[in-house]
């Protein structure tokens, strides 16, 4: 499960950094290494999770992880931004 969640976090991070609204880097990642690689990592994460887990349980865990990571990333980078600006 740990490996699956690590892949998932990496995938979400890439997808966030490829968004035009990201605030972590000066400019967003290009679509190719960003979104595509991110989607690939997310697919790998799901594959990893359903190894040894019941199918539905893996899908639920994966969805929760994606929701949590993509919710937290904008908040963390906004906080980071505000504190750097002060």
């Amino acid at each position, binding site marked *: *499960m740990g490996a699956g*969640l690590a892949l998932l976090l990496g995938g979400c991070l890439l997808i*966030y950094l490829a*968004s035009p*609204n*990201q*605030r972590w880097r000066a400019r967003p990642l290009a679509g190719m290494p960003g979104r595509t690689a991110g989607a690939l990592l997310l697919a790998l994460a799901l594959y990893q999770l359903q190894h*040894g*887990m*019941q199918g*539905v*349980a893996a899908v*639920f*865990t994966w*969805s*929760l*992880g994606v*929701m*949590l990571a*993509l*919710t*937290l*990333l*904008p*908040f963390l*980078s*906004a906080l980071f*931004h*505000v504190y750097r600006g002060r």
Partner: protein
Amino acid sequence: MRTEFIRIYKSVHTWTGILSGLALFIAFYAGALTVFKEEIVRWAAPPAAIAATDLAQAHELIARTLAEHPEAARDFKLHLQPAEHLPAPMSWSIKPPDADEHDSLAGRHYLATLDAAGLPAVSETQPSQLGELIDILHRVVGLPFDNDPNRWLMGVIAVLYALALISGVIVLLPSLVKDLFALRVGKNLKRMWLDAHNVVGFISLPFHVVFALTAAVFAFHDGLYALQDHLLYDGRIKEMLRPVGGAKPQARSFDPATMLPPAELVARVQAVVPDFVPDTLQYLQATGPRPVVRVWGHDPQAISPRAPGGFAVVDPYGGRLLSTDYLPGKQDAASTTVSSFFALHFATFGGTPVRWMYFLLGLAGAWLFYSGNLLWIESRRRKQRAENAAPEQRRDFRLLGALTIGTCLGCISGISFAIVAAKGLHGRVDDLNAWLWYVYYACFFAAIGWAFNRGAARAAVDLLWLSAGATLAIPLSSLLALLWPALGLWVNLSTASLGVDVTALLGSLALAWMARETARRARIGPQDSVWSDTQMRNRDTVS
């Protein structure tokens, strides 16, 4: 899409949100804590010699206890995993016949263990209601009783919540792609609150859809079953719902002494599902005509069908596995679908990592409702014209601001104080469980009163500090117990219990940070905001 429809759904979103937001805040904050209900109860459990359950002795314990207390045979439990709140391996309850099925604490509760001489020692006990307090607040929108009318009220809130979700997405659709992940912090406060609200609301939408639907079903399922029974099943629903039950036990004698030892029963289940971790054996009608044992437990790799986990049904005399209908990972597709609804609400899959995800997404949900109310106020306030004094804001905005601050922070600090009281008042008051409720509601209503009295801006700072302090008191009480044992406090050193201390410490730090930021906003934020505090401003200019 026609902008007219967007405007219509914006009204739907505004009104359903305002009507349900504060109730949902309580449901989500208390719900997030309910994920770790057992850990919180273990944190507060008074020190007792935890009799490590020796499975080899459990057989003796059951046989001898049932000989002395035959009334326990109807339904008793054997706890396999020692924990602070389960000081004896065997327990049962005698419930009054009119007790509500959801009220797990009704009636009288007994514990049994073997003493040094190998004789059963039975004692009556009063389980702590701390976990139930948090759970009940979560189930019935902050009311103290989990009964039908309150559940229906929660159901109405859940319906409003579902409408708010649907309408919120429709309103968001036109700007969805452009603004995805945007969180613009800056001068435009309305923009910032809106972004923050949208990020949580849209990204975790499936999570919220799950809770809106399951909460509505949990509130109204009795009514729906009754309607369907009348319309579809010609009154035969009871018969249809009865589980097939699997094979009948082949019992010859109903003498508990001839039951198989618990270790043997556990082994039979684990032979079928090696990943399954049993935690409780529930014996039903152990001396009746259909004796069965439910071997309850969890399998982190699979979804559990019910809130306490899943179970296998075993014949306690013959040892045959009678049913795996409720065993995680062993259900057919249709049963798995039904179980999914429960698992998704109760976080009964994936073990501890998933429970943390639920905890954090639940807190984010509470934030969603809080920010929704703030957004309503922020987008309707009267703008300050240059040079002029800040305009007087409309009364209903000020009142809703105060109500939002008082309710949300009153709930947070009230729960923290109730947790601390479960330890601090233990042995000092007669009816500790009643006192937990007094402490919670005293704090909750005092916070609302304070918010109305002081106004939202100043009360927000005060009450955030209060919440931070109340939450800090949780780990502080453990520290005090270590440093001054004479105080009569105690600290439990299991990972579960220390986890509560650490989480509360982090929570109190987060609340303190929010208190500082809120004070800053009251001083230097826009003066025409409900969150501006003239007095604090003036003090600043003088100094």
